[in-house]
């Protein structure tokens, strides 16, 4: 079965938000990436924290491929969201908040979940989130972080129904 899809519903404003985040992310992991950026570091965990030589060898061998795969995943999400874009400024409010169905082919679902997770990792790094209790209700970036978690949760739920 290759035509199975996972349906996610999102308002146009959500789609626009996600487009914005994914575009920033593609910039971050794209061809001109800065591997010294701590947010990039968060995407490539140290597999050998107690063995510097093995750690360097492993990361040298795998880092670029891993970031290339993050960029490919993000491209898949971005392509799927292409139809969600719209000039929100000119759009009536009820249209901007109307929900749209997005049918993600099962083969693309991992790319979606990895991208939503990677976006959360980047924001977490920028915000300095280290444990479960780190939260600042006055910082809107936490709102974005939580919303991405909610989107991921819905995607996992929908995809798990096909397991």
């Amino acid at each position: 079965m290759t035509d199975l899809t996972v349906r996610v519903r999102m308002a146009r404003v959500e789609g626009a938000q996600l487009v914005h985040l994914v575009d920033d992310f593609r910039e971050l992991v794209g061809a001109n990436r800065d591997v010294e950026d701590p947010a990039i570091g968060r995407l490539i965990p140290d597999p050998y924290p107690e063995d510097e030589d093995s750690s360097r060898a492993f990361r040298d061998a795998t880092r670029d491929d891993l970031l290339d795969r993050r960029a490919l995943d993000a491209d898949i999400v971005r392509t799927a969201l292409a139809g969600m874009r719209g000039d929100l400024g000119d759009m009536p409010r009820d249209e901007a908040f109307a929900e749209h169905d997005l049918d993600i082919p099962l083969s693309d679902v991992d790319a979606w979940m990895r991208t939503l997770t990677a976006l959360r990792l980047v924001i977490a790094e920028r915000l300095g989130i280290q444990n479960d209790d780190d939260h600042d209700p006055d910082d809107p970036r936490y709102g974005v972080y939580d919303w991405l978690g909610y989107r991921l949760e819905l995607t996992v739920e929908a995809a798990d129904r096909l397991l």
Partner: protein
Amino acid sequence: MIPLATPDIDEQLDLSAAPLEPWEVVVWNDPVNLMSYVVRVFRTYFGYSLERATMLMRQVHHDGQAIVATGPRETMEVHAQAMHDYGLWATVRKASR
């Protein structure tokens, strides 16, 4: 039954060079990762049952870490990289601890 090949009894296998020592992949707790997502990754990537995947996720969440795979070092590195692809914090170490 006729053997397809006759074993060459003169061949010496250098067992000291064989990587018999097992390694393991450890997944560490990270507040970023959703529990449902971690369970799904363990189920779909390793093929673990819902029960086993959930048990491992709880171990990560409550104990801070869980051993999710054991085997040859090269295989464990492949698994660790896959975990990194999914945004999970995984490390590789010798199993003899």
